[in-house]
């Protein structure tokens, strides 16, 4: 168990003009920990994710990240080049729509290999071997390595996006509704895959989802958001089984039992 958090958010607030995105969000995330951010559409969870992942500067508040050298740095005081390097190597970002995270006109192998090349890997044979082994891990048939993802199903594209993100063994991964828009059977396969990889690679994850079952399966802790604020937080199973906030009780009681 590591004693230092990898990500520390304090008082994160984002206004879009007069409209509130999120207000006064704070938490600490440790290596190996999975934090779920749940809430309905418009609750501010995607705004928060974008602030946390250095894609949207908060109006006030700070987000600090522990760099590989151990130094805690405020994301929004980093040089643009440093921030880009983080995004390309240290971090992953899994979008809900795989087309937002993949390059749709290059091959599956190149999609995976690209991030390795960003890390300085130049040996074509190594890159191809690594790409092959990652396709295998995410259960994409290896004979599809030279095909581009336009011909892939939604589930395959999402698995390819995950391989592209995890190939560099990032320390921190952001996920925005990674199972949204997939068939239930495809979701189950993806969840199982994610759960295995998160455990194995020991990375820290912030996952935004409106699906409480996904949060229960993948996360250690969760934040429940409503109208831009965190209304409840804590251990995932505690929040789901003994919800305190009126809104969390409503969310939990609204789940259909299959």
């Amino acid at each position, binding site marked *: *168990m590591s004693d230092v958090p990898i990500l520390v958010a304090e008082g994160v607030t984002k206004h879009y003009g007069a409209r509130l995105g999120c207000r006064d969000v704070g938490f600490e995330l*440790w290596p190996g*920990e999975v934090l779920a951010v749940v809430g309905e559409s418009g609750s501010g969870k995607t705004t928060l994710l974008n602030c946390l992942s250095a894609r949207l500067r908060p109006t006030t508040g700070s987000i600090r990240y522990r760099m590989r050298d151990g130094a805690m740095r405020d994301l929004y005081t980093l040089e643009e080049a440093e921030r880009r390097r983080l995004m390309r190597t240290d971090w992953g970002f899994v979008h809900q729509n795989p087309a937002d995270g993949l390059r749709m006109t290059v091959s599956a192998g190149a999609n995976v290999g690209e991030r390795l090349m960003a890390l300085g890997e130049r040996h074509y044979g190594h890159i191809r071997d690594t790409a092959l082994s990652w396709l295998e891990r995410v259960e994409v048939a290896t004979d599809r390595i030279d095909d581009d993802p336009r011909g892939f199903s939604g589930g395959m594209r999402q698995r390819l996006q995950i391989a592209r993100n995890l190939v560099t063994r990032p320390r921190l991964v952001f996920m925005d509704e990674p199972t949204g828009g997939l068939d239930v059977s495809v979701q*189950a*396969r993806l*969840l*199982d895959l994610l*759960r295995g990889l998160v*455990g194995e690679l020991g990375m820290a994850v912030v996952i935004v989802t409106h699906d409480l079952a996904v949060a229960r*399966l993948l996360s*250690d*802790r969760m934040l429940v958001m409503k109208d831009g604020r965190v209304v409840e937080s*804590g*251990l995932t*199973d*505690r929040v789901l*089984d*003994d919800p*305190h*906030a*009126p809104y969390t*009780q*409503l969310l939990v*009681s609204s789940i259909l039992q299959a």
Partner: protein
Amino acid sequence: MTTPRLAVRDVAKSFTMHLRDGICLRVLDGVTFTVAPGECVVLGGPSGAGKSSILKIVYGNYAADAGAIVVDGGQGGLDLATATPRAVLAARHATIGYVSQFLRVVPRVAARDIVAEPLILRGIDRDEATDRAEALLARLNLPARLWSLPPATFSGGEQQRINVARGFIARYPLLLLDEPTASLDAANRAVVVDLIREAKTEGGSFLGIFHDEAVRDAVADRVIDVTHFTPATP
């Protein structure tokens, strides 16, 4: 006197139902007891007395409204009532296990991997963890042909044996048992009794609910009557 493995003091629990006009259901008050190393304490009392709620509070699954829940697995005591989520997770990793009444199945994960997982999370080699999982499943008479299958379609008794194996494999200093033998046949109930007795001789502590009187008599050092902790009606 040795330090108790678990010391629960003055714990109270209520549920406020905001969707039901904020009605407040008081379920427990003044819960106080200890469990010593190597001791098996059984919670007794009728259905609805709050036995399962006590187990869930000790596991951190329900938040206590008041009181202290100090668990000591050998590295000093931790008060779960006030501990951070991270500290509770660490305690679940190393110190407290929980065998719930029903197995929560994960799609596509094989029975043997569900059982081996607590060991793998502790960094034990996958092959060794799998060997130990299979040995325990064999001891609980789960047919080998089921080991590689996800248990979603298994019978209640088969799922419960997987749950029991997952709880016992990691030799937690404190194991919470919620009716671990409810849907088991006599032979498998006897295996569970043996597992508890063996673990006790090695210093393992148990806090459990057993409706089966024969099992309770075979494993319990003490029975605590949970109705003592029923809140006085206002």
